[in-house]
């Protein structure tokens, strides 16, 4: 260590902050350098003198006040917040409560609101009795077809017990007749005011929840009506087998579903009512409901396969076999998950001569 290095470390040496090996080097330098030793001794002497400066004592009264405060605080019951585990658990519990509330609110907000359901078939019967008679002649009892169309667990979940006991028919009396391939849609069109054509037929007056849901789909409904039916197209009776409705939903699709439901809460209702109409053999109503649902569902929405499948079955029920074939084709194209099912149906229809 030279003089410059020693000077740089005088303060640390004076106050005992040098590492042992540095202190040793300093001592060695001071032993052989009188100048540095004298400089350091002067500084050390100043320290010694400064140490003689008196330390004023705080007044006893002030000390007593502080002790009294400390005692008072120590005797006070400890706040829960002073425990570490409370600091950890409190935010977690808060998050759970908030999350639960949000989830509960969302669930309430998304749940389909009860809306009085007026089967369109009844209105059709009231307004177009002659056409009903025509339908009776051309269709098999719809109740059986409806029952076949839906898998048992799904039906059980969607129907009230009383209705399950009664069978699929929603109205008392004879089974509601099913409309003919194109007649049903035409009769619905004629029997209802222009608004009803856009779907208001399915909701009771003054049911606002469904109103917003039915304002858009007129265009698609009309395009579907343009699908030409194939009268007497080989399949004498619309065969709707018991294949389950496509409901395979991946987590990503579920997210999409939720998004869709937020955009329009009536889609689940439309699908549910469409399936009820299928069960009841009201294929015309079912077709309209599924068409409206499709109008509301954007491409790629996980509920679209369900709606397409329902529409295809309704078209089969209405003897619109070419339309059904096209819808199954659309289903196969849109949903790889349900392609096999759709292709099976397409094969079946093609085998019956439908093009």
């Amino acid at each position, binding site marked *: 260590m030279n003089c410059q290095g020693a000077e740089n470390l005088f303060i640390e040496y004076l106050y005992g902050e040098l590492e042992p090996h540095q202190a040793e080097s300093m001592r060695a330098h001071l032993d052989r350098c009188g100048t540095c030793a004298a400089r350091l001794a*002067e*500084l050390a002497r100043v320290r010694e003198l400064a140490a003689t400066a008196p330390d004023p004592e705080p007044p006893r009264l002030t000390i007593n006040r502080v002790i009294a405060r400390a005692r008072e605080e120590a005797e006070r019951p400890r706040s829960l917040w002073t425990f570490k585990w409370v600091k950890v658990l409190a935010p977690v519990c808060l998050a759970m409560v908030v999350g639960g509330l949000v989830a509960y609110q969302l669930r309430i907000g998304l749940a389909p609101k009860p809306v009085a359901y007026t089967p369109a078939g009844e209105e059709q019967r009231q307004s177009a009795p002659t056409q009903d008679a025509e339908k009776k002649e051309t269709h098999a009892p719809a109740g059986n077809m409806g029952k076949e169309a839906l898998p048992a667990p799904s039906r059980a979940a969607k129907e009230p017990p009383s209705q399950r006991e009664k069978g699929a028919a929603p109205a008392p009396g004879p089974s509601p007749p099913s409309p003919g391939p194109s007649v049903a849609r035409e009769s619905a069109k004629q029997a209802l005011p222009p608004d009803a054509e856009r779907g208001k037929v399915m909701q009771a007056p003054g049911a606002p929840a469904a109103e917003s849901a039915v304002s858009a789909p007129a265009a698609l409904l009309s395009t579907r009506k343009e699908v030409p039916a194939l009268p007497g197209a080989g399949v004498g009776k619309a065969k709707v087998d018991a294949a389950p409705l496509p409901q395979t939903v991946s987590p990503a699709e579920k997210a999409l579903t939720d998004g869709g439901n937020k955009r329009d809460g009536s889609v689940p209702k439309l699908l549910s009512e469409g399936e009820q109409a299928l069960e009841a053999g009201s294929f015309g109503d079912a077709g309209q409901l599924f068409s409206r649902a499709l109008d509301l569902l954007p491409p790629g929405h996980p509920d679209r396969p369900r709606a397409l499948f329902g529409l295809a079955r309704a078209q089969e029920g209405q003897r619109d076999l070419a339309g059904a074939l096209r819808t199954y084709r659309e289903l196969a194209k849109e949903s790889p998950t349900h392609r096999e099912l759709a292709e099976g149906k397409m094969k079946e229809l093609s085998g019956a001569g439908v093009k």
Partner: protein
Amino acid sequence: MSERFPRLHTLSDEELMSRYARGEEAAFEILLSRYSRPLFTFLSRYLGRPDRAEDVFQEVFYEVIRGRSGYRPRHRFAAWLFRIGRNRAVDRLRRNGVRKMESLDHPSNPREHEGENRVTNVVAGDPDPENEVQGRELSKALETALASLPAEQREVFWLKERSGLSLGEIADITGVSQNTAKSRLRYALEKLRATLVQQGFEP
């Protein structure tokens, strides 16, 4: 105090503070006995007036009491205490509009402050009358020298002399680099020596 709490007396500051945080009031009394004088000395020298130091001293320990549950033993208690003390003292100076630290060593009205007399009496406590006179003169020269220190040097000097904190901790508390704190301390010692020499005392 140590006689009252022999078991606690052997504990470190940090352990004592942790115990007080858990409700053991005696631990706080030990801490107070250890630090009341060094802290009060620093505050008195920093603020220049014992009456201001009293208020701030009380505030500092009240803050320690309030903050006990937030204290983490990995931080040195002394550094925490003197940091609070320094900050409260700075607040007090700002509140009073004092731009430069006043000096206990050069009170505006000596009769207002008892500190100077005490200093003289303590240093002059030698039974030999000749030594007593010499001691009184030296004490006076020392106080003059201490009063002549620039505020920044005085702050670092008294923190180092009374708190037992390292240069790094002092640098942290005063918000300067360690080299700056070291330089200020070195200049303070040099200046004290020069002032004493001017007054005829050769350290």
